[in-house]
């Protein structure tokens, strides 16, 4: 993509820095008198989420990032890779397990996620803020122990282990926060 004059920079602009896509989350333009304009930005790495401050000066150029987000459905995993399908045209893409990272623990069959493409390569998924999953394995609770702050480890379909209250049993469904991996509540169905 052709580079752009820094005067085109604004909030939510997506820019390319050292082969990484960033989004401008805060933007401030200051210009002392006849001095050079300063474009003071806070930018977020769209892959790692890391936030940094960066100032451009008038006359500088920036590279717009070629990024696109598509709604896709998770189909299956082969161990090394995860396959997603574009709901609009049924095209499938494979994302290496190393790119999916810990998000794999929340990839339930057929779950709909936003897949981020950078230079036409899938570089990450954005999950819903919480998912509902079923307990497939857990120690039974100790009889008589009813204190609510006591937890035990339980495994859900994807293999993720979650600390849950002692009263949760195999076969029950729970809501999990995808950002922290923490148990939120039991879901009665």
């Amino acid at each position, binding site marked *: 993509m052709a580079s752009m004059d820094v005067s085109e920079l604004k909030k939510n602009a997506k820019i390319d820095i050292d082969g990484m896509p960033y989004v401008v989350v805060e933007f401030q333009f200051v210009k002392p008198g006849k001095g*050079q304009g300063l474009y003071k930005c806070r930018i977020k790495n769209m892959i790692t989420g890391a936030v940094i401050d960066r100032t451009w000066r008038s006359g500088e150029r920036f590279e717009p990032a070629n990024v696109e987000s598509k709604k896709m459905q998770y189909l299956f995993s082969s161990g090394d890779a995860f396959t997603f399908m574009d709901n609009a045209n049924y095209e499938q893409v494979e994302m290496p397990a190393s790119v999916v990272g810990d998000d794999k623990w929340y990839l339930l069959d057929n779950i709909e996620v936003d897949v981020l493409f950078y230079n036409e390569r899938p570089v990450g998924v954005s999950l819903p803020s919480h998912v509902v999953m079923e307990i497939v394995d857990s120690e039974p609770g100790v009889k008589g122990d009813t204190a609510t702050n006591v937890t035990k480890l339980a495994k859900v379909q994807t293999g993720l282990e979650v600390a849950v209250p002692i009263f949760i049993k195999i076969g029950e469904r729970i809501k999990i926060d995808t950002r922290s991996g923490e148990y939120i509540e039991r879901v009665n169905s």
Partner: protein
Amino acid sequence: MIVADAVRVWDAALSAISSCLRDRGLRQIQTPPVVDEVALEPWIEPLGLAGRFVQTSPELTMKRLLADGAGATFQLAAVARRGEHGQWHREQFVLLEWYRDAPTLAAVRADAEAVIAAVAEALAPWRRADAPVPTRWRSIAWLDALAQHTQLVLRGDEDGDALVHACRSRLPLPPLRAATPQARTLEAWTALFTALCDQALDAWLAARAADGEGVHVIEFPAPLAALSEHERDGSGRAVAARFESHGFGRELCNGYRELRDGVEQRRRFEAVAQLRDAVGLPVLPMPERFLALLEQARLPPCAGAAMGVDRLVALACGADSLDAIALVR
């Protein structure tokens, strides 16, 4: 601010400005905003219009009028500067520009103080009672402000590379991109100006403003003269007959004792053009009509200034951005 209030505020402010400068012996005029040539500045971009420009200021037009015997005039000019958008910047704004056909910078500074006071008074009904307005003014030489805030002691005639070297530990400047010595000097000094304002001066000016004090930064270093005359200050430093007035903690006004030497003005514009080329800014035509006027020694001794009216109106209302008083968004 709702539109009806913004209309009242603008009406009061524009009327106060006109009355103030008329009372001080200037005549109000209006010149066309679309022009054939603009003064070359490193960091001011005109909006182009099929080979012509919306004026970045009416300076060149008003200097032609001075050469033709117009005398002391002022105007409230519609101007545009491409790409300037922020809390205190708009691409299009109203610039009060005035000239006195006498080379007295002190009179022009006094005009600036009077205009700011008149607008502050006119807009008092829209301002919090305890909001500070500049009721007294102090002047500080640019090189003294630099020394005071960064411990950098300079003479004002350092060339670009010497300046980058001198600043390296106190206020590091970005690497120079211009090739020619004149353009490197201009680039380094404008970078130092930007860094000084951004990292030290603005906070100090805000503190002065909170105290009800306005500040004229005077005697700019010679490489930042733009369209003003060079001179030597009391201690022999190379300075420009230029001032910048800061009221309410913000830059409001820029004034010059105007340069009348066509050879020197062309040399400065050429340095600007070389710098613009080095940093990839669009090529602007040399303002030959204006340069011819200087080269024919037709510009009488004069001094003038320009003041950002939108900013003054917003600040005098106690607003925290130009949005509050904008008539058109």
